[in-house]
Every structure is written in C-alpha cells, then in structure tokens.
C-alpha cells in the first residue's frame, strides 16, 4: 500500500444531505439527485472522514475495533474510500489519486 495513500485525509463533498436512520447513514447527493446507503460498517468509517484523520489512522482504529490485521484493515478502508470516491461523495481535493 503506497504511503502517500495512507497519509491522505479524505472528507465528504459539501452539499450532501446525510441522515442517520437507525444506525445506517443515508446520503442524498443533490447535485445528481442520487441516493446512497451505507451499512453499519460504512457508517462507522464515514464518521471519521473529517479531512484530518488519515487513512492510516482510520485503519489502525478499525484494526483494533474489529480485531483484524493491520493489512486487512488498510485494504478495507482504502476499498471503502475508493468506493465513496467513485460515487462522487468525497471532496475533489481529497481524492486518493491526488496522492
């Protein structure tokens, strides 16, 4: 895993309408009128996408909380963040390919 990616601090796009529905986040993107739903795991990760927490830090926490290896956690977090990026839910200046 390139270190540049692990040091990225992604944050959500502005303008999204995000709401917690019994532990699952539902996100409406007004720019394209599209709805997304995060499962409880995605919901937990999303809450740390604040533009200052790095992917490495997020993966370390995920590893500790979910009892998985650091490599597995990093892989899972990068896949999750990449999927958010593909759905245009991340601010452009925090895209992984900017690393």
């Amino acid at each position, binding site marked *: 895993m390139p270190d540049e990616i692990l040091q990225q601090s992604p944050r959500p796009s502005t303008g999204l309408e995000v*709401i917690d*529905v*019994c*532990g*699952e986040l*539902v996100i*409406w993107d007004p720019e394209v009128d599209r709805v997304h739903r995060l499962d409880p795991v995605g919901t937990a990760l999303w809450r740390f996408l604040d533009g200052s927490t790095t992917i490495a830090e997020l993966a370390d926490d995920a590893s500790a909380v979910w009892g998985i290896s650091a490599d597995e956690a990093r892989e899972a977090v990068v896949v999750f963040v990449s999927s958010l990026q593909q759905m245009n839910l991340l601010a452009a200046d925090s895209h992984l390919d900017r690393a």
Partner: protein
Amino acid sequence: MTTTATHRALGHRFSLGGNEDGLAFLERIFHRMKHSCLSGPTNSYELFIEDDIARSVIDGRTVYSGDIGEAASRLMTAINHGAVRSLHEHDVIHAAVVSFGGAAIIVAANSRRGKSTLCSALVSAGFGYMSDELAPIGHDLKVEPYAKPITIRAGSFSVIPHLEEFDIARQGSRRWILDAHLISDAGTTTTALPIGLVVIPWFVEGSDVQIRSLSPGEIAAALMTNSFNIPTRRRAGVERMAAVARSTRGVEIIHGNALDAASELRQVAEGFGA
C-alpha cells in the same frame, strides 16, 4: 366543443373538454375527480375522437394523436404532474398505495416496474385502493389518497385477465383504464392514513415469490430514490423520509406473478397488523 365543471387531482384543478365522444370518454374516466371549487381550473385537458383516432390537447396544444387509450393516458400523465406540482408541503413518492387494517401500504417503484399491475392485483385481493401512481406524505407522516383510475399496459393484460370487466375505457386499446372502486369490496380509501408497510417490488419473469425484510436505512433510501420532489424539499424531505423509515416496516418482494405477490403480501400485512 364543450367543457365540463372543474375537476381536482389533489390540489390541481382542471377542466375537461373535447368533442362529444371525447368528452364522454374523459368524463367516464375522471368522474371520481369531479369537484366543486370556488376558484376556477388552472389547466384544461381535451380529447377529440373521430374515426377511432384520438387527439389529446392540453391547454390548447395538441400533445398526441392516435390510440384512444394512449391519448387518455397522456392526459392522465399531465394531470399527475399537475397533482405533484400542487403539493408544496408533502413529500411525493412514485408509488402505488393500498390500504389494509386502517394503514397505508406504499409500493414504491418507478415506471415500468409493474406497480400498477401489482396494485390492481392487491385491490383484487381485498386491499383498499388509494393510488397507482403517487404517495403524498404529509407532516403527520400520513399518506393522502390519490385515487386516479388505474392504468394497465397491454403487456399485463394476461396477468390479470379477470379485471378486464372493470376497464372503463372499453376501447380494446393498448391500455385498460380500471375503476378500482368497482374491483374490491374494500373500495377506495378517501382519508389520509398512517403508513404501515413499505414494499419494494421487483418483477422477474418466471420467479417464485421471495420476500425479504428491509432495514430502516433501505426503506429510507428507497423512498428518497422514488421521490418526485426531493430536489425541492431537500433537507425537509430527507428528514421526513427518515422519519417514515424509522416508524414503519418494509419488505422487498421479488415475483413473477402479481396475483401470487398480492396473496403473499396479504399474509405479510395480516402478520404485521398493518
């Protein structure tokens, strides 16, 4: 040409017109929307039928010429849009709605997902009719009835052949226009009802009926996806859809036959006490 008294679709007021045959046809279809208002109509919908060719006219402009059922359907679509535009405080979901046990069951799906066919099958199975097109949800989380005639495309005729006798268009055309009030003893529901169940239908040819419970997040996402007016309601709409999802149950149903699906959903509704 003649015109009739004002009709109403939710807050949308309109008049009907056309030549003698066209107007008689429209009055047969829309007679349950007749309404006496103090204020006049905002739009006019006319139908002219000559030599089995129909012409739809909206506010003086011809929008279609051809099959009679299709011509009436074009007018109905425009009336539906007017109904959506007339609501400013409601969240309007693209859905069929039936009632059971004093609660509304929302069947949320966009066009060509078999919504109207399933709706007519549900009404045939004893559910009350509220709409085959719109579910307007108010601040009290109740659904307003919008009991327009049910429009069935030709591809579904063979699924519900027993309902042909309720086709009030009676033109042997590419569409049936069903008066739901006549189909079921439960008739048409005329008051707003709380939501007891949200159903997401999927028609898969040849499939047995499969039902899966939805999480509240899935319910909210489905309602938002099928909302007509979330771009104007924005945060208020998102919050209301979430409130609905937190307070009701939902199922996804995959089926290959609307009558079988209706039978299964009746058992689900009875089990939920909807």
